């Protein structure tokens, strides 16, 4: 048995070493015990590589009173601007390509740590689809609950390597610039990405039930929920009609309205959506546009966007249902 124990101990050494390396590099500040890699390097490199895990760990360490939850379109609703206007503490709990089911899982995750006062869900119709589904939050939460999962996670291992490389070479680990010109990227979104979003659609009943559950829970616990339907450029809006989904999009608005919470809608023909200059690409608005939305929603002065009311919903349903009023 002695021989076995000695060999087993030697065999385990690399794993212990690896655990030590991860604890020292700690790209997501999970352990917060080493400052070998400065926070600015981690923020610049680890965060874009796995924004979800970075944000969840940060939120766990330092939860906030108010939240905005969304996908990449929520980046340009700058937290600093919101905090400046409201004077309240906010946290942006987001990730690239976050799906709506994941948004709600993030709500549950956040409320388990601290029940927030206000939560703003940043969304668009393209997320309200049974097939727009991903399952990353549970995995990230598993990591948060068990340091061993963090140490032996593939994405953490990759990030360790890239963050160390970026630190040594003093250059960003990943480039966020699309590998094509703005015009080509724009067209690619209109053709390819739109097909990805709208080419396969089914009404997400389970997702809507979950939405109702979240709103019920929030109301019961004194949390104010708001949905912001972010703008797409009119060329992208036209793709919804191309795929015959206008009625489904209006049903989406109606469903949100019927939850009994504030729903701000910017995804229709208006002075933001008609102008390409307000967008980086057809689905991502610019920081300046984000500031305009912040000024309207958080100050309550609607000029471009609209607060969904029964009148708005009725007028929308009237336009897409030819039988209505017969």
């Amino acid at each position, binding site marked *: 048995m002695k021989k076995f124990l000695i060999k087993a101990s030697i065999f385990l050494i690399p794993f212990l070493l690896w655990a030590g390396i991860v604890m020292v590099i700690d790209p997501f500040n999970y352990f917060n015990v080493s400052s070998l890699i400065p926070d600015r390097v981690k923020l610049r490199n680890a965060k874009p590589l796995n924004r979800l895990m970075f944000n969840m760990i940060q939120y766990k360490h330092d939860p906030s009173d108010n939240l905005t939850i969304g996908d990449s379109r929520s980046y340009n609703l700058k937290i600093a601007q919101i905090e400046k206007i409201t004077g309240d503490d906010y946290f942006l709990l987001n990730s690239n390509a976050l799906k709506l089911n994941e948004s709600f899982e993030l709500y549950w995750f956040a409320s388990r740590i601290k029940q927030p006062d206000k939560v703003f869900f940043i969304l668009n119709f393209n997320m309200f689809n049974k097939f727009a589904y991903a*399952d990353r939050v549970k*995995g990230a939460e*598993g990591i948060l609950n068990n340091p061993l999962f963090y140490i032996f996670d593939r994405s953490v291992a990759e990030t360790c390597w890239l963050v160390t490389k970026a630190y040594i070479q003093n250059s960003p680990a990943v480039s966020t610039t699309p590998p094509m010109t703005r015009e080509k990227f724009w067209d690619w979104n209109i053709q390819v990405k739109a097909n990805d979003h709208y080419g*396969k659609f089914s009404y997400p009943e389970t997702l809507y039930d979950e939405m109702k559950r979240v709103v019920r829970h929030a109301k019961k616990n004194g949390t104010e929920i708001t949905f912001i339907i972010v703008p797409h450029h009119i060329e992208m809006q036209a793709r919804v009609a191309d795929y015959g989904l206008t009625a489904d999009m209006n049903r989406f608005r109606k469903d949100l309205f019927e939850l009994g919470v504030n729903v701000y809608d910017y995804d229709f023909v208006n002075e933001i959506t008609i102008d390409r200059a307000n967008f980086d690409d057809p689905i991502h608005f610019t920081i300046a546009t984000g500031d305009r939305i912040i000024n309207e929603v958080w100050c309550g002065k609607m000029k471009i966007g609209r607060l969904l009311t029964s009148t708005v919903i009725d007028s929308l349903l009237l336009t897409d249902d030819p039988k209505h009023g017969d």
Partner: protein
Amino acid sequence: MLFNSIHFLVFFPVVVCLYFLLPHRWRWALLLVTSYYFYMCWKMEYIFLILISTVVAYLTAMGMSRSEKEKTRKTYLVLSLLVNLGLLFGFKYFNFFNDNARILFDRFNILYSVPTFRVLLPVGISFYTFQTLSYTIDVYRGETPVQKHLGYFAVYVSFFPQLVAGPIERSGRLLPQFFEKHGFSYSRATSGLKLMLWGFFKKIVIADRLAVLVNSVYNEPSAFPGTPVLVATFFFAFQIYCDFSGYSDIAIGSARIMGFELMENFRQPYFSRSISEFWKRWHISLSTWFRDYLYIPLGGNRVSRPKWYYNLMATFVVSGLWHGANWTFLCWGALHGLFLVTENILGPPARSIARALSINTGATFFKGIAMVWTFFLVCAAWVLFRANSLHDVGILMNSLVSDPGQYLDVSAIGLSFRGMGLKTVDLVQSFVFIGVLLAYDIIDTRYDFWKLVDARPLLVRWTIYYAIIILILFFSPYNKAQNFIYFQF
């Protein structure tokens, strides 16, 4: 407690250390306590079912051993069968029969008011009841001596490595091993660890990865067209194989470390060239159980042809029902029975024709065709096994055959996989890992893979071990332990 949990990673080494530190006369007690603890980690109160099954089998066997009268011995046997099968029926099948009776009575407008029994299915109940049943039947037949020590017998029923998902061990094989004094053996320990390692690889890296796509498709069959259904069915064939044989490997490996040899449960089943061969390689402990305690007592193949076919069908229908109280399992068993009957009817004339035409069916080409055909039949049957209802089977089959052109439309195939939370790289990795599994199985048919590894220098050996561990650690699809499929049976 799951094998693939942190809990087990702590539990098992502690048990092994205590086992070798304790004097032999107390080891049975340690194994009994730890086995009960292992089971109670899942649901504490259901330990009483194991206790009832154990005590009844023990007492009835003792009763049989004390009596010379055939009638008394038979009474004890029937008592044991009634209690054990009663437990199984009550907890596993009552609701199935009750619900179907309700549907039948409703059809004839007859009031039927037997309520549904709201209870969770006890993990592993089919496994340990079959183990106690085999013991009682063997004692009755005089094929195994009665065990007078209740403690040792209780360990036999509840031995934690194989308690919840087998292999279903016979008393004649496992019970005597508890009386043997096992010293720590370096070679046995490393051999057991290697088997466990491979079991974990199959379960965590392959089965759990494939489960993501399989669950997406089979839990919502109407949402996916033919290509994802086809891929999901192919994946399920490997998911269930890796899940269950992975469990068996971990069970056999962990028992081996403590000095126990459990029976082999899988022998490269997908290399079978006929359905009858498949059943000699798949879940061997269960198929031999059914052979010895149901098929042969029914008369086996030493009866008229119609009766033989009936025996085959009956055995496979019961085997299907053993897997779960659902029409899908029953039909799955019946389909396998039908495959076997067909094989027995068509096999001899087909062989005669081949001989007449001087076709060498032993040639590699024909062997390959037979293998692929058998795999195809097994996969077709897996649709029934995995689907949640017969209605879903209809939807899945319709998706598979309704539009043959869909399999050629490359642009539509990409979009058809949307909605599972998977990337292309996940699919590619799944196929790569299935390839690794098949490569291992091919090597293992000719040589013992681990003996080949043992013959290499230390550096090569350790590189292989590290590679497998790294794959397990870094390629587990989710940071969450997934249940084993066979726990539900």
